[in-house]
């Protein structure tokens, strides 16, 4: 028996969220005695990089290096992961929530007749059946979800478990998948992706700006603070609506939901729709000149003050400390 983990990679690196999913599976297996953790990686990626997935807890990595899988074609990825699942005799599939992961997991739920739980925030409770805690209402509540199928799929939210780094390298085995042209019927014609930047949905620290920043020309201050912190930058909905920042930086109910260790909000009042996108953050810092801004009620730390005054000082203070 084993637990299978679908891992994603970008720019030659296995995603950190996928490594967290591996660590989640490792802890899950210690609890349910489902044997070793086996990861499956699709498309071209360096085998040394895949071996390092062992550090997070995988014993083995199956590598389907078919270059047609380099693109995240949803149906093809779902077909390949289903074959790996059956080949290793797994009952449980774990993966990180992501744009591709979610789309693939939904199809796999049907293919594998597996109960699927998304937004999983901690290890399942197996004392009485199989109960998984997940976040609902965009992080405003949690649901205990009873999974009644023999096969199970868990799509894990960021920070559900601590990432392990103390394991040994995994063995990497070639895995041959049997895919037909129809699995590749849809074509990804091009991709626009911010490269070299820390990606917002996966970032451990996020610095966001709102209308209080007064204009796109002032974003340098947000970026400088983010740079010192090693953070991704985000923004509120009005800011992306008026085009000061691109849509993929919009944090909130209908934008990106983030779950960083530290979320710094500058000049954002804290409308309920924005809070819905950040309420899974471990620690929230709010900088706003309006002491009545509702965001202070949701914050751990706050500074009442003008962003244009506070940001440069904070950036300098952090530079000295870090």
């Amino acid at each position, binding site marked *: 028996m084993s637990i299978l983990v679908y891992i994603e990679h970008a720019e030659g690196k296995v995603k950190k969220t996928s490594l967290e999913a591996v660590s989640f599976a490792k802890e899950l297996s210690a609890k349910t005695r489902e044997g070793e953790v086996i990861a499956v990686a699709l498309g071209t990626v360096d085998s040394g990089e895949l071996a390092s997935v062992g550090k997070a807890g995988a014993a083995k990595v199956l590598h389907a290096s078919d270059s047609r899988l380099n693109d*995240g074609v*949803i149906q093809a990825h779902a077909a390949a992961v289903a074959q790996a699942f059956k080949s290793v005799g797994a009952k449980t599939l774990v993966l990180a929530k992501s*744009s591709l992961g*979610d*789309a*693939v*997991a*939904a*199809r796999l*739920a*049907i293919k594998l007749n597996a109960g*699927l739980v*998304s937004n999983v925030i901690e290890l399942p409770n197996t004392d009485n059946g199989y*109960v*998984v805690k997940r*976040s*609902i*209402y965009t992080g405003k*509540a*949690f*649901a*205990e*979800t*009873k*999974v*009644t*199928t023999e096969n199970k799929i868990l799509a894990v939210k960021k920070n559900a478990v601590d990432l392990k780094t103390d394991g040994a390298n995994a063995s990497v085995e070639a895995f041959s998948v049997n895919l037909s042209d129809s699995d590749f019927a*849809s*074509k*990804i*014609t*091009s*991709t*626009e*992706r*911010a490269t070299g930047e820390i*990606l*917002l*949905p*996966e970032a451990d620290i996020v610095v966001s700006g709102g209308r209080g920043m007064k204009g796109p020309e002032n974003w340098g201050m947000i970026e400088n603070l983010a740079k010192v*912190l090693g953070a991704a930058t985000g923004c509120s909905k009005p800011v992306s609506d008026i085009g000061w920042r691109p849509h*993929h930086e919009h944090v909130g*109910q209908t934008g990106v939901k983030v779950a960083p260790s*530290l979320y710094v909000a500058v000049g954002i009042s804290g409308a309920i*729709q924005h809070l*819905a996108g950040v309420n899974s953050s471990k620690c929230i810092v709010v900088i706003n000149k309006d002491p009545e801004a509702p965001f202070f*009620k949701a*914050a*751990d*730390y*706050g*500074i*009442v*003050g*003008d962003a244009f005054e*506070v940001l440069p*000082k*904070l950036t300098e*203070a952090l530079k000295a*400390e870090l």
Partner: protein
Amino acid sequence: MKILVCITHVPDTTSKIQFTANNTKFDTTGVQYIIGPYDDYALARAVELRDQTGGTLTAINVGEAETEPTLRKSLAIGADDAIRVNSFPKDSFFVATQIAHYAKEGGYDLILMGRESIDFNGGMVHGMVGELLGMPSFSPVMKLEVEGSKVKMAREIEGGKEYVEAQLPLIAGCQEPIAEWKIPNMRGIMSARTKPLKVVEPVSQETQAEASSYQLPPAKGSVKLVDKDNVGELVKLLKNEAKVL
């Protein structure tokens, strides 16, 4: 072209979330229900495509009788007819099973819905329906153009987007900026009253992952304020107290 759009009936985004019956039921007291915001984008795009290409647009919802005003609103916005599958939407698999059944019966070319419902946030129904019907599924889709039988889409990925080409029939989970939300006009509201709304029974009761109880997050302690002229204090707190640096 025959288009099906799937509508969720969900609490308004500003609703206070509370539970009753020993934390096993959502407390609907004082809650306003709306068409899911993502479904609203799907509906708006579906209306545009129906008007562009001719054909029909059907709205479907899995829900009990109280969801009908929401479904009627989708008729007021522009759907031609509606189907309500008369059951509480127990889990994603249950909902997908119903939609797949009635979608197959209706022979739709394009099935649109929101990327996720804003109550349970599963984001799974489009993929499940796709697999059940053997159709490709895409989500979250930010742009969708139909040219004959070819569909060109932009799908959001971490930090950007990818452009995809596929053939009808297909399923897409939608999000902004695929279209602008449409507000029903008076003529729409009047005509919605007489447009056909068919109530059908679920084809199966099977579930796989039902929610059994609910919890609210622990109350947040009060904010610790740091003086704006002493930002070094904040750095210390983040480092030594919150331990996030």
